[in-house]
């Protein structure tokens, strides 16, 4: 791979990641994450990992963004500021430490494509040389995933299906008529209402939103049980999303 392109891609990658973190508008953040995935998939393609690249482009740059946008439309579009700004004085050194550790560990890694790397000396030699003979499959990645290491794939598929079923169990609720706990109103209003309130309530609210199941359900109950204006609001939100 061309080295300059490599470096440029990494720089764009870091910029996209930082922008996704900084963006106040969550739709912008999703767009940045999607761009991030796209550039990661280009990098994968650059090191000849075409299978991973394809999955990353389809999943990361494609449907993940779609699902995130769907989640945003079901909850809220604005990201809340951190309740306690002092938090960064704890988090930033930790992140720096982690980064330093990773960079230090990276110096001990074998070069890309090194034939003497530990990963190349074990069973992978057998897989690579025997794949065509054993399974009539020229693409070693496929024969690895679906034959030599098919138990991993079995577990992986189970995980995906379980995740989808869990999401369905959490999000599909019977639409109880009196499920109001004031949270749906808090979604739009508590930013300015409780601006001067104690820190406890604010963190409680964000924690609930992060739990990812309280907010959509509350939002849905308000949407279905209230007047059509709520539905119209959701609809215009959808228009903006596109």
């Amino acid at each position, binding site marked *: 791979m061309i080295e300059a392109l490599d470096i440029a891609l990494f720089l764009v990658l870091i910029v996209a990641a930082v922008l996704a973190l900084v963006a106040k508008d969550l739709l912008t953040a999703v767009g940045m994450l999607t761009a991030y995935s796209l550039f990661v998939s280009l990098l994968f393609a650059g090191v000849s990992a075409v299978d991973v690249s394809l*999955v990353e482009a389809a999943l990361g740059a494609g449907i993940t963004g779609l699902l995130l946008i769907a989640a945003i439309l079901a909850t809220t579009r604005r990201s809340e500021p951190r309740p306690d700004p002092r938090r960064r004085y704890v988090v930033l050194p930790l992140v720096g430490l982690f980064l330093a550790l990773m960079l230090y560990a990276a110096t001990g890694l074998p070069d890309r494509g090194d034939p003497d790397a530990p990963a190349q000396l074990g069973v992978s030699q057998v897989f690579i040389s025997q794949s065509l003979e054993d399974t*009539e499959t020229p693409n070693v990645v*496929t024969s690895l995933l679906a034959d030599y290491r098919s138990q991993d794939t079995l577990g992986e*598929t189970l995980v995906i299906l379980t995740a*989808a*079923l869990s999401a*369905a169990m959490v999000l*599909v609720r019977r639409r109880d008529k009196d499920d109001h706990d004031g949270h749906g109103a808090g979604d739009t209003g508590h930013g300015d209402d409780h601006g001067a309130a104690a820190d406890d309530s604010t963190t409680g609210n964000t924690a609930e939103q992060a739990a990812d199941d309280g907010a959509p359900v509350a939002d849905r109950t308000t949407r*279905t049980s209230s007047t059509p204006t709520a539905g119209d609001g959701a609809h215009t939100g959808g228009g903006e999303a596109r």
Partner: protein
Amino acid sequence: MLGTYPSVVVRVVGAILVPFMLLFGVYIIAHGHYGPGGGFAGGVFLAVGAILPRMTLSPELAYRIFPTWVGPLVGGLGMMLFLLVAVAPLLVGGAFLDYGAIEVAGMAASRVRYLGILLVEIAVGLAVFGALLLIFDVLTDAEDVAGELTPAANREEVRR
């Protein structure tokens, strides 16, 4: 996000694209032996092919092509196919997931493994398709995902 998109250009292009996206998904699944791809990526393309009509076409049409029960059903069928393929070698004395142990007349063991890989890829593709479609449907509040029907008035509102 759901429902008929206002622009006719988007609707027409979306409608034209869908069959090709589905075909491409099938191609990615079936072509995993010879090129990049496989069940995972192919399943994602199939799921996007089912989701695009939900976002652009009228709900009546979109949910007729791919009803909401398709997600869980196909996902479960895919998983079941995978488990069947995994268990089948046990019946003839082989190891779990060792497709080569199945003896088929006039077919080398490597050929059987080749077909086993194909079946596994199809199973993974179906499972991924079902799982992603299910996640999208529950996120966008599509009705009767778990066999639970909402009153017609609410349904209209949700669909818009």
